[in-house]
């Protein structure tokens, strides 16, 4: 690069991509680019990548589930709740074991919908 401060140029491009570049910054970026071919090359390739990221996001964010970034304490709290519920279920199951007949009846009822991928008329396993 001939006379442009590369670090400053990258900072301005970062701000532009973050859409936080103010009018003064925009004027500074223009001044850096207008007379420096190498600065313009750096800018073009950075924006090319930025454009690729935007298109990737637009193409994938509409098809996938909504993603959220959760803070660590929320994730830990959720994990603790899952563990507590699991332990409680095991304890209850050991103290009050299900009668054999009830268990068999319930599993037969709940198993039926799971076999819905069978073709109509297809016989169930004996």
């Amino acid at each position, binding site marked *: 690069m001939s006379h442009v401060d590369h670090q400053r140029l990258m900072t301005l491009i*970062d701000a532009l*991509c*973050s859409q936080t570049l103010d009018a003064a910054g925009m004027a500074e970026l223009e001044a850096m680019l207008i007379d420096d071919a190498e600065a313009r090359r750096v800018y073009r390739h*950075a924006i090319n990548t930025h454009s690729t990221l935007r298109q*990737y996001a637009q193409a994938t964010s509409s098809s996938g589930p909504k993603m959220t*970034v959760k803070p660590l304490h929320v994730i830990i709290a959720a994990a603790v709740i899952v563990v507590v519920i699991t332990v409680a279920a095991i304890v209850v199951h050991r103290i009050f074991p299900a009668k054999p007949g009830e268990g068999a009846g319930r599993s037969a009822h709940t198993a039926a919908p799971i076999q819905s991928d069978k073709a109509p008329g297809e016989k169930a396993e004996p």
Partner: protein
Amino acid sequence: MALHAEQSDRYTKFAMRLTRARPGLHSFITTLTPNFTEAEKTLRDASLVLWEQYDDYEPGTNFLSWACRIVRRQVIEHRHAASPDAAAAGFSAALIERLADETLVDAELERLAAERRAAGQCIAKLQQGDRNLIRVIYGGKQTAQAIAAQLNRPVQSVHQRLCQLRRAVEQCAQRTLDGEGGAS
């Protein structure tokens, strides 16, 4: 009936060419129009403008290059028609012309297209959390402010992470291409 089929076939070919050229057009317009909302609008309008001028396109030539030359005029016309405030928010006509001239060289168009393809592979190598961050913010699902609030961190840290990711993807793409060049 035959005329209708011919017109339909013509439109189908146009749509296919436009779809293939879309990533390059998006990059080209974004380069000339640093206001990204305005760039998206220009890209949407470009479909109609290109269809209206499709008679001028010579089959077998570079469609992206042809489309960029038309869109370039569109960007310049918008620049001249814009209010002083809107014009001040963008680049000068002189800078737009220089950026367009340098992009519309065949070798540069090919290099930028190759970088976009390589960048796609590099994005796939990012960690899931980083890809999610890109998707929610660049996809417009949530703002950087909202993500920062969820994380209980300053918004600047979210912007910084996105910039790091953009730089990492760009460097990865360039390394990939330079490696291919060295191997050939």
